[in-house]
């Protein structure tokens, strides 16, 4: 049987967040992140370019590898994580 992980997933500013008490342990970080984005009320596309935005998951201030599984990354089976994305500032 595949163990599950309880995650508290929040946006960087804390404006939106949710608890998922049973994330399948064999899901990748990439898959969990992708599923979290709409629940966190994040945009899917970059309004400037129209291209899809790419999000990352952080735990304890460290960006998690996208290809690792939840069960591997969270051996304690419980964690609070943030989903964030990069942004550009430009002076030209």
């Amino acid at each position, binding site marked *: 049987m595949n163990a599950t992980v309880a995650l508290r997933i929040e946006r*960087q*500013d*804390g*404006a*939106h967040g949710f608890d998922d008490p049973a994330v399948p342990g064999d899901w990748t970080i990439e898959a969990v992140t992708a599923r979290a984005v709409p629940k966190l*009320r*994040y*945009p*899917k*596309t970059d*309004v*400037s*370019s*129209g291209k899809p935005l790419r*999000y*990352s998951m*952080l735990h*304890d*201030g*460290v*960006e998690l590898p996208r290809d690792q599984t939840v069960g591997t990354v969270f051996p304690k089976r419980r964690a609070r994580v*943030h989903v*964030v*994305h*990069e*942004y*550009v*500032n*430009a*002076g*030209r």
Partner: protein
Amino acid sequence: MSSTSMSTPAARPHRADAATRGVRLTLPVHAAGSTAEIELEPAHCERLFRAAAYVAIRDGDLRPGEEVFAQLVPGRTREQHGPVRCLDSCAVELLAAGGRLVTRVEFPRAVFAAFAAARAVHLLVAAGQAVETLSIAYSLHALDAVEEPFPVEIPALRHRSIAALTRRAVAHGTPADDWVVTFVAPDVLAGLDAIERLSRESGAEAAGRLHARVGFDRARRRFVRILERLVISRATSATGTTVVSTAASWGDFLAASTGRGPRAFSHLHTHLHLSDTTAGDGVPGDHLLSASPTLRAEGDPCVSIEDIVTHFTVFPDPLSAMLIVSLFRDRRVLKVYGYTPGAALREEPGYWVLPPT
């Protein structure tokens, strides 16, 4: 911007059909022979939703901490293109439990101008055209859509007396007193020195984020923003004209968050005005400036369309600020930009510096 709060609770209709009344907005953009259409997601409009909630709090229509839902509805219709309404404005309706309408705030089409300009610049860059003289036309279209109302939760803002805070503070410029009053802690000023050194030594832009405590002066009906601490981002990718704050760069900032009390995140970056010629390591014409065409040494402090769009989409809270530190050969200029009640961005005319604690 026009803001129309409902005057009395008794006048507020109930919105049992709230989930079916929303619209989806699009922005058709035309620039120099190229066209595109921006499909606005509800998340692109979060700054409007949150601005409407803060207006409602200011006007006494909503209590901080009370959860409401926002939906976009048409404002003034300019003309009708078949099933598509071409709008002069849109509105945000805030709905409380049971579909009660808390308030309705109207926003002009221009609230999306930066999005249209940013897409226009991308169109021109893709076409290999210069951005020197850019003519942009854009419309605001509304399509009926079944949109789930967008949850908006404003933290339970504590009372903060502006009079008590200003008693020992020093004014820089003429601090605004019409919506949000901004205070800067000494630690932030020390952080400015550090990021200036870093940026000058590297010859590249540098970025950081600021923790800010926020509150509400109930007597004066004004919001309070206290910029407490600057955390300089290490995981950035920067040139002389751009700085990318990577996903990993959030790590230090979030780890440094104490999490006590209502807060709003703000952000800061440097602009290098050190050259007599146009800084040249970006993509030509990839950014359109509203005031100054370049970062020349003789230019004025400026803000780019890219900066504005980043602020609108990544920092949608009305109490979030954007700080730009313009570094000239012989001086440093700090500009603070904050939201208006109409969800536009303005340069704050001043701020208060708090004494050391």
